[in-house]
């Protein structure tokens, strides 16, 4: 009899949505929510709020791993987290830690979820869609791999078995030399078929030199918190933003509640809307500008919603905004994230 433990966040465990994201870990008997759709017997379900995990990772892990140690499952199943970054990160992290302690683990999430990297190759990740409509497709595939891991089966390469590459390299003798394979890939690319034998990481940029003289520098504020003027005049999306927006800060000394709001769909905006300076510290920056700590605040705020944004889109936004800032002679930036 295979013993399975399932990890869920507060939302999928039915404890509440964003308002419950700060909830501490808990253990429930049997299958909960999506766990019932796995088609395998779930002995226990571990739950943790997404914000709690991100902000108290050590305590969360201690609690969750403690329960895993007591339960001694044959396999741990986490998620699916789809496109949810905090949830994916929690899944990848707990899966990694469980695997390192001898409990094989399977996660489910979208290939661009930051949680994929959190697993650090120790656990298996089944690729899913980036939204909840992918649930019916994801569960059986996660369960299938979980059964095999629990049975101690040897798992083949990612391409054949349908999980995401774990960043591990196994040497094998190829039929052709690298030179021949490279030309084959190039010819295929010219025909419009793009393949790669290894994938690139997020690009690394060396840290820029320190700002030489802050008291003379122009500093800009940028945010992915979904901050917009009240009423969201340009219809910034709550997720999958298609664009970033620029709003004037001339004559604005602080972000007054009621004049600004956040439309970000990935966190509970109650605290932010009560005082938008909690997302973008305009009030403090203006004070520091008056005191001469910085030369001046750049007159434009750049904003978007960083929620389920494809990596390529986010990189493009960053490029566009950076170009604007560079053209405007900005020397320093504070970027706030949620």
């Amino acid at each position, binding site marked *: 009899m295979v013993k399975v433990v399932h990890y869920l966040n507060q939302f999928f465990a039915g404890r509440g949505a964003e308002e419950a994201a700060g909830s501490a870990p808990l253990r429930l008997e049997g299958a909960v929510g999506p766990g019932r759709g796995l088609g395998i017997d779930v002995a226990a379900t571990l739950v943790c709020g997404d*914000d709690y995990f991100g902000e108290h990772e050590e305590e969360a892990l201690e609690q969750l791993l403690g329960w895993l140690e007591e339960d001694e499952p044959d396999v741990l199943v986490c998620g699916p987290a789809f496109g949810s970054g905090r949830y994916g*990160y929690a899944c990848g992290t707990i899966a990694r830690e469980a695997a390192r302690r001898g409990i094989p683990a399977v996660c489910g999430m979208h290939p661009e979820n930051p949680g994929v990297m959190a697993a650090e190759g120790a656990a298996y990740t089944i690729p899913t869609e980036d939204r909840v409509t992918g649930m019916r497709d994801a569960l059986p595939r996660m369960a299938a791999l979980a059964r095999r891991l629990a049975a101690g089966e040897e798992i083949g390469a990612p391409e054949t078995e349908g999980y995401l590459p774990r960043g591990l390299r196994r040497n094998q003798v190829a039929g052709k030399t690298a030179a021949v394979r490279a030309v084959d890939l190039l010819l295929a690319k010219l025909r419009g078929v793009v393949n790669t034998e290894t994938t690139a990481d997020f690009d690394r940029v060396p840290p820029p030199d*320190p700002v030489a003289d*802050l008291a003379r520098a122009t500093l800009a504020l940028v945010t992915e918190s979904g901050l917009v003027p009240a009423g969201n005049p340009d219809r910034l999306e709550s997720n999958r933003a298609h664009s970033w927006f620029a709003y004037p800060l001339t004559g604005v000394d602080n972000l007054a509640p009621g004049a600004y709001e956040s439309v970000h769909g990935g966190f509970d905006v109650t*605290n*932010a809307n*009560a005082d938008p300076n909690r*997302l973008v510290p305009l009030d403090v920056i203006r004070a520091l500008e008056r005191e001469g700590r910085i030369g001046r605040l750049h007159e434009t705020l750049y904003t978007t919603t960083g929620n389920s944004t494809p990596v390529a889109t986010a990189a493009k936004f960053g490029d566009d905004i950076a170009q604007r800032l560079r053209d405007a002679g900005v020397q320093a930036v504070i970027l706030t994230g949620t």
Partner: protein
Amino acid sequence: MVFITALPTIATMVGANRILRGVAVTNPVGDPQRERADELALRRRIVERALTMLASPVEANTVWEA
């Protein structure tokens, strides 16, 4: 650039270089649990730390506490 976020590990994974730990996901540079004057003082400390980080040399993917 300094990136203020309550989830610095994710920031590190995607390659940000100057990372300052924010207060919480819902309020990176604020704290609704505090009295107003106290919260303003906290925001000020965080921003001043960010300015210090901007003016300091760092290794890649460096995280500072506020």
